[in-house]
């Protein structure tokens, strides 16, 4: 009787240990599936790279949503449509967007007569849509501007303004 119990306990323990080892091995060797999930979330984001969500761009926000469970309603340019798509993809509940966005499809413009050529705006542009050299006038590549407004705050002479997208 006693030996039967010991055999049973031992057998189960051995099986559990083997399974545990296999799982540990697999989880180390196979790449995490989070990358694919991040890609899919990132695809739904509007790619304005405006950082209004509090993360330094769309992909970092996607990573935060997938890995750290960040709220899905932090993207003002994406609006409610994006929140709903994210909710559908992730099986979470849709909530209204945390901050309402002003103008969704706007375009940054530089008043070139005021520009002092400090290159500050060029440095913050997340998509390299501003060209210009030190001490020389800068300009926005209209077709590449996502309207994130990051350059507007950064300009020391307030010569950047948002205009309606063409």
């Amino acid at each position: 009787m006693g030996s039967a119990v010991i055999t049973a306990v031992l057998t189960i323990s051995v099986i559990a240990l083997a399974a545990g080892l296999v799982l540990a091995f697999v989880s180390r060797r196979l790449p995490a599936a989070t990358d694919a999930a991040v890609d899919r979330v990132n695809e739904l984001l509007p790619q304005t790279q405006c950082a209004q969500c509090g993360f330094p761009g769309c992909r970092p926000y996607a990573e935060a949503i997938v890995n750290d469970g960040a709220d899905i309603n932090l993207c003002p340019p994406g609006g409610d449509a994006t929140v709903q798509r994210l909710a559908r993809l992730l099986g979470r509940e849709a909530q209204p967007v945390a901050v309402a966005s002003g103008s969704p499809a706007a375009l940054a413009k530089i008043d070139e007569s005021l520009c002092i050529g400090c290159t500050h705006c060029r440095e913050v542009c997340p998509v390299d849509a501003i060209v210009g050299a030190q001490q020389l006038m800068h300009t926005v590549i209209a077709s590449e501007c996502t309207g994130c407004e990051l350059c507007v705050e950064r300009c020391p002479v307030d010569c950047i303004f948002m205009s309606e997208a063409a």
Partner: protein
Amino acid sequence: MTAATFDLGQLHGGLRLPDNKQSSTAMAVQTVPVPAQLVIPITQHAGDPAHPIVGIGERVLKGQLIAESDGYISAPVHASSSGKIVAIEPWPVSRRLGDKAPCVIIECDGEDRAIELSEPLQPYDAMPPEVLFQRILHGGIVGLGGAVFPTAQKLMHAASTPLELLILNGVECEPYISCDDMLMREYADEMLKGAQILMHALGVDRCFIAVESDKPDAISKISEAGLNLHDDRIVLKQIPTIYPSGAEDQLVQLVSNREVPSEGLPTDVGCVVQNVGTAAAVARWIDQGEPLISRITTVTGDGVMAPMNVNARIGTTVGDIVNFVGGYSENARHLIIGGPMTGKSVSTDDVPLVKATNCILVLSNAEPKGETKPCIRCGECAAVCPIQLLPQQLYWYTCADDERQLRNYGLTDCIECGCCDLVCPSHIPLTADFRMAKARMREMEDERARAERARQRFEARNERLDKELQERAAELAEQKRSVLEAGSKAIQDILARTGAFEKRDDDNKKDDKG
């Protein structure tokens, strides 16, 4: 030319519509005199806008280039008569998007003097196809069936594919419109000449002229002209009168029994389709040197005094044309540019006649369509759809805004013919819904392309910044290393040198003492 044949493919669905064409075909085509003012839109074709090359105050002659083609798919625009340019400004026009477009406004001097041709006329068969394409491009010729795609570019694309068949589209299946019918009756010679030029340019040796069997006058005139021409490459095909058999892909299916693939072109099945009016315009330009500055258009409906077909200069306002045919009748209520199925209603008759205008339709109060009720899924719409789509299903998904399913169910293949609208017992405006859904889909696609580009640029920038950071770090590490290495050696050197100095100093002192 051989006799008419009926060995044709089948068209799914379609409708037999009351044609309402008798009133406008009773009289020969009348020519509208040159008006006091011409309003010529700079862009009258599909593709990139043309670029105006004249200034205000400049005098222009008939046939003079006023806007040149700009871009890969584009067509130039010519002055329709001689006169002085008084303005270049936005003017109401009839088009799908927006109400106004930039127009060149010419105050005509009434002399109608033509400009001398920059290139001398040559017989078409003396020109190689490339030269012919360029000539056709310079003539400002666009597809006159309604889509106004620049003809030269269409031919150039077609010539780059294996081609077997040129089809001249004389199928005017939409009710009320009869301008192609009248063109075939009165300009059959010109049209056949155009067919020969197009065949030469494309290098094909078969041409079908497709005409509906309910146009006996046009058929007899073409046969007559064909007898004089002795060109047995050209065959006249009679096709059944079913709307929308004149749509490009449907016509290819009917005439050649080949189905144009989804999102494909007739060239994918070895065919190219040109409107009969386009062929005549090509002949007039290549043979007589007159660019596309006038067209035949149907003025009809129970809202005009005398319905008829007129030959008018491009840029003549619709108001002038209606006045020419005797003005509006008392019960005129709706002005539609184009036919009743695919036309667009406009709010002013200041809009000019453009290359695309095949019909000016003035109607009295339209019959009330009835209240829109929920879909009962009867399937009538699917039975009449010439593309064999399932409009009831598409309607479902347009309501749900489900883009993926709309794509799966082939919304992008919808030709917006309006058949499903007409048969729907619940009076659901299906075509309008589909048009909106298509526009939304295009918008989403643009948006996605833009987002994808922004994503790539963002990632490329991050990569670059990372690389810069690493390079900087490596540089600093290298500096530190070299300073450390060089530093210890330098100190030793200094020490060695100072040691030597100290020694020398000591020696000197000794000397001084000594």
